[in-house]
């Protein structure tokens, strides 16, 4: 089942009395399956927050359409099944932590004992129980983020949008938030995550989309996006053996500083042919590794290429 589906979604902002136009999203088609964690990455101004705002009806699309749980986003009933933690969220400073959850819980349709119980449960989850009766103006940035996370899941939503959820949170707090998100996923929740922290996204997401200047550059699983499909590292149990002798048009071989070899091939068949040659030479192969880049490497390379392509 699909939790989110967008079709050629576009957003153009007009500024200066309509004289200047900024295209925040360009024909964005995307689908996110239920029960998965989807990470949306992109540099500042890529359109990540705009996409979430469009999906939640905070801003309106110029063209295209979107559905959440197969329901058109122009209504507001579907929001009962949604939780949202915006970037730079503001809570009324005169409210106490528990009152913030009470207010947003009520707006989400909760009442009475069910809400009271849920408030305590949520504060316990984000480790803010002791701060329940403290006004939020006394909260630190990290505490506000944790309260925001509690607010976003108070109504036990099926789909949760999180915009930079770990912003301002210390490493231990970030780990705790990651654990909460993984726990929510294990309960079948769908999570849509906007984040700058690529290493974190890499750790918890099932699929990732990379957005730049309103266009979706790539989308796939972290594994798919970080695999260098045609590059391997081969480690042979003989320091005197010179694999460079086998270098030809289908095998570009480079010796690495640790004595192992980096091999670029056209396809999987080519690496198998090379392995056969090494073994026929009577050598023992200690390991063959498919080279992977980190999400960060891939992200930077992709954005750089997109920028360079635009300049050309």
């Amino acid at each position, binding site marked *: 089942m699909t939790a989110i589906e967008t079709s050629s979604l576009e957003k153009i902002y007009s500024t200066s009395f309509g004289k200047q136009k900024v295209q925040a999203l360009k024909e964005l088609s995307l689908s996110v399956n239920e029960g998965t964690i989807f990470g949306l990455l992109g540099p500042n101004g890529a359109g990540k927050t705009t996409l979430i705002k469009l999906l*939640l*009806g*905070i*801003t309106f699309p110029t063209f295209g359409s979107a559905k959440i749980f197969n329901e058109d986003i122009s209504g507001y009933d579907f929001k*009962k099944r949604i939780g949202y933690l915006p970037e730079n*969220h*503001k809570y009324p400073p005169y409210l106490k932590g528990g009152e913030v959850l009470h207010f*947003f819980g009520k*707006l989400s349709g909760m009442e009475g004992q069910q809400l009271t119980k849920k408030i305590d449960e949520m504060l316990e989850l984000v480790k803010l129980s002791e701060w329940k009766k403290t006004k939020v103006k006394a909260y630190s940035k990290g505490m506000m983020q944790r309260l925001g996370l509690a*607010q976003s899941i108070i109504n036990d939503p099926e789909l949760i949008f999180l915009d930079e959820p770990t912003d301002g949170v210390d490493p231990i707090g970030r780990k705790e938030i990651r654990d909460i998100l993984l726990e929510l996923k294990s309960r079948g929740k769908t999570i849509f995550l906007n984040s700058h922290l690529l290493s974190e996204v890499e750790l918890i997401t099932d699929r990732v989309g990379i957005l730049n200047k309103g266009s979706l550059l790539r989308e796939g699983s972290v594994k798919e996006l970080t695999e260098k499909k045609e590059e391997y590292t081969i480690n042979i149990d003989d320091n005197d053996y010179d694999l460079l002798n086998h270098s030809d048009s289908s095998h570009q071989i480079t010796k690495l500083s640790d004595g192992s070899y980096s091999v670029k091939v056209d396809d999987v068949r080519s690496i198998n042919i090379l392995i056969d040659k090494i073994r026929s030479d009577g050598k023992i192969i200690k390991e063959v590794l498919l080279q992977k880049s980190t999400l960060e490497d891939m992200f930077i390379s992709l954005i750089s290429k997109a920028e360079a392509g635009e300049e050309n």
Partner: protein
Amino acid sequence: MRNIFIITWFTLREAMARKVFLFFAGISILVLLGSILVFSLVDTQSFISTMTQGQADLVVSEIIAKLELLIISPLAGLCLLLAIFSSASFVPVMLEKGTIDLLLSKPISRPQLLIGKYLGGLLVVFLNILFLIVGVWLIISLKFSYWEFSFLLVSLTVTFAFAVLYSIIVLFGVITRSSILGMMVAYLIFLILSPLLQLYKAELHTFIENGFAKTILDGLYYIIPQTAELMGKITVEVAAGHGIENYSPVITSFFLLILVMSFSIFLFRKKDF
């Protein structure tokens, strides 16, 4: 309805946190204490006989109504000025980035959100005005042992005048996301335009010969909220228990309120945040 109630309730909470109630209550208590002090020095019987000397037809009820109005009239005007000042930021604060995003992500429609906020502001002002009016009424009624309940209705006419001005503040709040312009327009109407247009209609109408100017002024008289009439003649009539002689200012102001609020909701429904 439930959503409107939640937003209204939290607007009251916001007003309490911003000490709006405390501020109003402080002023009201000062006025009430002053009234108690003055009336404790007055001998009721000699006061009434002084007031009725040479005016045999002046009955006690009218003396009391005039006395109540004498205290309330300047205070109601002051209350309205303070009400505009203290409620002007309710909508702009709601529209701040980070706040509106959260509210709109909840299962509540945009009209419900704006109406809830509007009613919240109205309720804040109504409760404060009611406190002052009930206080003055109690002091005078106890002193003269005369209970004229129609005076309490003044709280409704003052709140209605505020409701009309507040709809304009809400409109400018939605358009500009700031409280300044709405507040300035409300003050301009209440302090200058409405009194001038009332003066024109009552006194100067017959002296203006230019037909075009007359048409413009007549048009403005009906377009601009008639807060001067609402706070003046109509409030006096209501306080005295005579009933409203001319409903035209109430009707035109009410239509304007509906029109302005409808336009605010229309804009709010279309606005990107």
